[in-house]
C-alpha cells in the first residue's frame, strides 16, 4: 500500500509534563482521511464517555487535514476537537489562517492534549522540539496581547499562535480559540476546554517539507482551479464582498433573524450590507494560506480599531439578532470578541436571549444588575461582552450560552433559547430553509450550518437534484420532500472537506463533488479513491461522531429544533407565514442514514457496513 506522508501525533499530558510521538495507523488514514475525521476517531478511542468536558481527562485534539499545508488551494484549515462543555457531547471548531499549515510544516498531523497544568502554561513547538513554558505572566491578557508577548519573548515574529483570551481562561462555555488575531476555532466552547487545562496558547514553528505525489498533477489542479472559479457563484460573491455579501442573500429571502428570531427580515438591510462594508470600512482583500478566494478583508473603523474580518455570522449575531443595524457597533463588538476570545455567534445569541426574556418579564431588573437591556442598545453590548468573558455578575450566567442560562433561570425560558443541543443557531432562519433546519437539528456538534452546509438547496437546479437524489423538490427551500436525502449527502461530502483541511468556500459549489475532491487527494498523496469510497468515508466520520454523542446519552429527542420555530411563523417579509416541523424529514434522514427511527442510533448493520463497533 502506498504510504501517506501524514499521521504523526504528538501526545502531551499537561499534568505530568510528559509527551510522546506516535504514528497513526496508515489504514486509519484510509478510513478517516485526517483533520476532523481522525480527530473524531482519536477522541472516540480516548474517552469512555463519562468524562466531564472541563476535567483534565477530556482530551483536546488539534488536527490538520490530509491536505493542509499542501499546494492545494485553500488548504489552510485545522480542527480542534473535544467533548464540548456547551453541548455536553461531541464538539469541535475549525479555523483557517496560517496556524494549520505551520503545524503541518512542523511535521504533526495531530496534537492530543490531556491533563491539567498546575499553573498556566503554553506549548512551544518547533519541529521536534516540544516545550511546556510558563504562561503565568500571560494569564489575564487578551488574545492580541498574548500573541504579541509570545512572539516577543521567543524573538520570532513568524510564530503561529493559537490562544485563548479571558473568556477561555474563565471557562465561558462560548469561548473560542483564536489564531492569527482574528481567526477562530469558534464553536462548541473549545476555548473553555483549553482554559480548563490551564493552557493559554499553542505556539508553533515548522521548517519541514511537504511532499507531493505529482508536481505535474498539482500544477494542473492549480490551473483547472483558476478556470473553474471564474464561473463559480461562491467565488464571485466572496472574492468581492466576503461573507458580508450574504446579508443580502439571506435577507432577500426573509430568513435573516432579527431580535432573537422574533422576526426574520429587515425591510432595509442596506446599512449592514456587504456593499457598505466594502465601501466604508474595507481597506484591502485578505486571504488564508494558498487561497485564491480571498473572502476576508482588512478593515478599519476610524478612531476605534483595525483588524482582519468581517464574517456574515458575526454581523448577524452581533447585529439584527440583538436589534443592532449599524456597522460601528457590530465592528466594535466583533473586535472585542476576537480579543476576549468569545464566539461571536454564541455571544450574540445569548445577548438576544437575555434581552428577550427580560423584555417579556421572565427575569427582573435586579436579576440583570439593573442593566438597560433592550434591543439595539449599542452602549450595552461591549459591557455585556466584558462581563461574559470575565464571568462578572450577570456575565457568569450568560457565559453558559443561551440554553444553559435558560436552564438556570428556569421559568420555561428555554422556549426563547435558540439552540440545538445547547449550541446557538446561526443567522439563517430554518423556518424558511427546510434543509438547513434539518441540518441544524442533526449536526453532531449541535445547531450548526457547516456540518451539512446545504447551499445546494438554493443553488442547484431541479435537474441536478433529480440526478443526485432523484427528487426535484430537494432544491426547493420551502418544500420538505427529499430533505433527508439532501442533508445526509451534504453531511457526508462536507465531512470530506473538513478532513482534507480545505475550506468550504472552495468546496461550497466549485469543488463540491467527491470525484472532484479525489483529483486533489491524488495529486498530493498519489492515492486515488472512487466517489463511493469517499462518500463512505464521509459517512463513517459522521457515524463516529454520532457514536460519541450516544455515549453521552443523546438520542432522537436531542435532534430537535426549538419549539418556537414550529409554533411562531415568520411575521413579515419574503418568507412570511413559514414555520418548520422536521418530524417527517427527520424520519427520512434516519432512514437514509440507516439509523433507528425511535432512538436515532445507528443500526448494527450500518455499523458493520462502516466497520465500526
Amino acid at each position: 500500500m502506498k504510504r501517506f506522508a501524514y499521521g504523526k501525533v504528538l501526545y502531551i499530558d499537561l499534568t505530568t509534563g510528559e509527551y510522546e510521538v506516535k504514528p497513526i495507523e496508515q489504514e486509519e488514514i484510509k478510513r478517516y482521511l485526517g483533520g476532523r475525521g481522525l480527530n473524531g476517531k482519536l477522541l472516540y478511542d480516548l474517552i469512555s464517555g463519562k468524562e466531564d468536558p472541563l476535567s483534565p481527562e477530556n482530551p483536546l485534539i488539534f488536527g490538520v487535514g490530509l491536505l493542509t499545508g499542501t499546494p492545494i488551494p485553500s488548504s489552510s484549515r485545522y480542527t480542534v476537537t473535544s467533548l464540548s462543555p456547551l453541548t455536553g457531547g461531541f464538539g469541535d471548531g475549525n479555523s483557517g489562517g496560517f496556524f494549520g499549515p505551520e503545524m503541518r510544516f512542523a511535521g504533526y498531523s495531530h496534537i492530543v492534549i490531556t491533563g491539567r497544568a498546575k499553573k498556566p502554561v503554553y506549548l512551544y513547538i518547533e519541529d521536534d522540539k516540544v516545550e511546556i513554558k510558563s504562561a503565568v505572566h500571560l494569564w489575564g491578557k487578551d488574545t492580541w496581547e498574548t500573541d504579541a508577548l509570545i512572539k516577543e519573548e521567543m524573538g520570532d515574529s513568524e510564530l503561529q499562535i493559537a490562544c485563548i483570551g479571558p473568556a477561555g481562561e474563565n471557562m465561558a462555555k462560548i469561548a473560542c480559540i483564536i489564531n492569527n488575531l482574528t481567526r477562530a476555532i469558534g464553536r462548541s466552547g473549545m476555548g473553555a476546554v483549553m482554559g480548563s487545562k490551564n493552557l493559554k496558547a499553542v505556539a508553533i514553528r515548522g521548517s519541514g517539507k511537504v511532499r507531493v505525489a505529482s508536481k505535474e498533477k498539482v500544477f494542473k489542479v492549480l490551473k483547472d482551479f483558476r478556470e473553474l472559479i471564474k464561473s463559480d457563484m461562491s467565488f464571485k460573491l466572496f472574492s468581492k464582498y466576503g461573507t458580508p455579501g450574504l446579508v443580502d442573500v439571506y435577507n432577500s429571502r426573509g430568513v435573516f433573524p432579527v431580535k432573537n428570531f422574533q422576526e426574520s427580515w429587515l425591510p432595509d438591510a442596506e446599512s449592514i450590507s456587504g456593499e457598505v462594508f466594502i465601501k466604508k470600512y474595507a481597506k484591502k482583500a485578505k486571504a488564508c494560506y494558498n487561497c485564491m478566494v480571498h473572502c476576508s478583508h482588512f478593515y478599519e473603523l476610524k478612531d476605534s480599531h483595525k483588524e482582519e474580518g468581517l464574517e456574515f455570522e458575526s454581523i448577524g449575531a452581533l447585529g439584527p439578532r440583538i436589534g443592532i443595524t449599524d456597522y460601528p457597533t457590530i465592528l466594535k463588538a466583533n473586535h472585542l470578541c476576537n480579543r476576549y476570545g468569545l464566539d461571536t455567534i454564541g455571544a450574540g445569541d445569548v445577548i438576544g436571549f437575555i434581552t428577550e426574556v427580560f423584555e417579556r418579564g421572565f427575569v427582573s431588573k435586579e436579576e440583570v444588575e439593573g442593566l438597560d437591556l433592550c434591543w439595539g442598545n449599542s452602549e450595552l453590548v461591549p459591557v455585556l461582552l466584558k462581563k461574559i468573558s470575565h464571568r462578572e455578575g450577570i456575565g457568569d450566567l450568560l457565559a453558559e450560552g443561551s440554553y444553559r442560562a435558560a436552564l438556570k433561570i428556569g421559568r420555561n425560558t428555554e422556549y426563547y433559547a435558540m439552540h440545538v443541543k445547547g449550541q446557538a443557531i446561526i443567522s439563517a432562519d430554518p423556518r424558511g430553509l427546510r434543509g438547513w433546519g434539518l441540518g441544524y437539528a442533526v449536526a453532531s456538534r449541535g445547531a450548526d450550518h457547516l456540518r451539512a452546509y446545504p447551499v445546494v438547496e438554493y443553488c442547484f437546479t431541479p435537474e441536478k437534484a433529480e440526478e443526485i437524489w432523484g427528487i426535484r423538490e430537494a432544491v426547493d427551500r420551502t418544500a420538505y420532500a427529499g430533505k433527508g436525502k439532501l442533508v445526509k449527502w451534504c453531511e457526508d461530502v462536507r465531512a470530506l472537506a473538513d478532513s482534507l483541511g480545505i475550506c468550504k468556500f472552495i468546496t461550497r459549489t466549485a469543488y463540491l463533488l467527491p470525484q472532484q475532491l479525489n483529483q486533489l487527494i491524488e495529486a498530493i498523496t498519489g492515492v486515488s479513491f472512487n466517489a463511493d469510497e469517499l462518500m463512505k468515508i464521509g459517512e463513517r466520520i459522521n457515524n463516529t461522531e454520532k457514536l460519541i454523542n450516544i455515549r453521552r446519552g443523546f438520542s432522537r429527542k436531542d435532534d430537535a429544533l426549538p419549539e418556537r420555530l414550529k409554533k411562531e411563523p415568520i411575521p413579515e417579509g419574503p418568507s412570511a407565514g413559514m414555520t418548520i416541523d422536521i418530524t417527517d424529514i427527520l424520519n427520512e434522514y434516519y432512514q437514509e442514514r440507516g439509523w433507528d427511527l425511535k432512538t436515532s442510533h445507528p443500526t448494527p448493520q450500518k455499523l458493520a457496513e462502516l466497520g465500526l463497533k
Partner: protein
Amino acid sequence: MTNKSILVIDVEKCTGCRLCETVCSLDHEGVVAPKETRISVIKKEETGADIPVVCQQCERPLCMEVCPSLAISRDERTGTVNIDESRCIGCSMCFMACPIGGITITKEKKMKKCDLCGGKPLCADHCPTKAIEFLPVTKVTEQKRRKGIRKMLTLLNY
C-alpha cells in the same frame, strides 16, 4: 538586453495568501518548503501589511560584489543574478550584504535566490490578485505613476 523585465509588486493588492511561496518552492525544490522558498510574504497582522519580498536582480548586485568565491554572476542577456551552487562555499556573505533579504538560507546553509524561473516567474503567473507582475522595464514607469496619481485623479474627478 532590450526585453528586460522585472517583478513589480503592488502591496495593496497582496492578500497575504503565500501561494507565491508555495509554487516557488514546489517548482524549484519539488516540495512545499516554506523555509526554502525564494520569495516570502512578510506579514504584520495588526496592520494588515502583506509584503512579498524577493530578489530585485540589481544592476550592481551587492551579493555578487561580496561573494568571496565568485559564485554569483549576472546573466547580461536575461538580467538575472545567479548563484553557481558548485562554487558557493556557504559563507552567507551574500545574505548579509543584500539590503532587502533577497537571499534565502536553507537548513543545510545553502544560499538560494530567485532566478525568475528562467523567464516566466511562477509567483507572478499564479498570483490570484496580480499583486506580483512580471513586466518589461520599458512599461513599468508610466504604469507606476498612473497608480501613484490614482487618488489625485479621483479627487479631481478625472
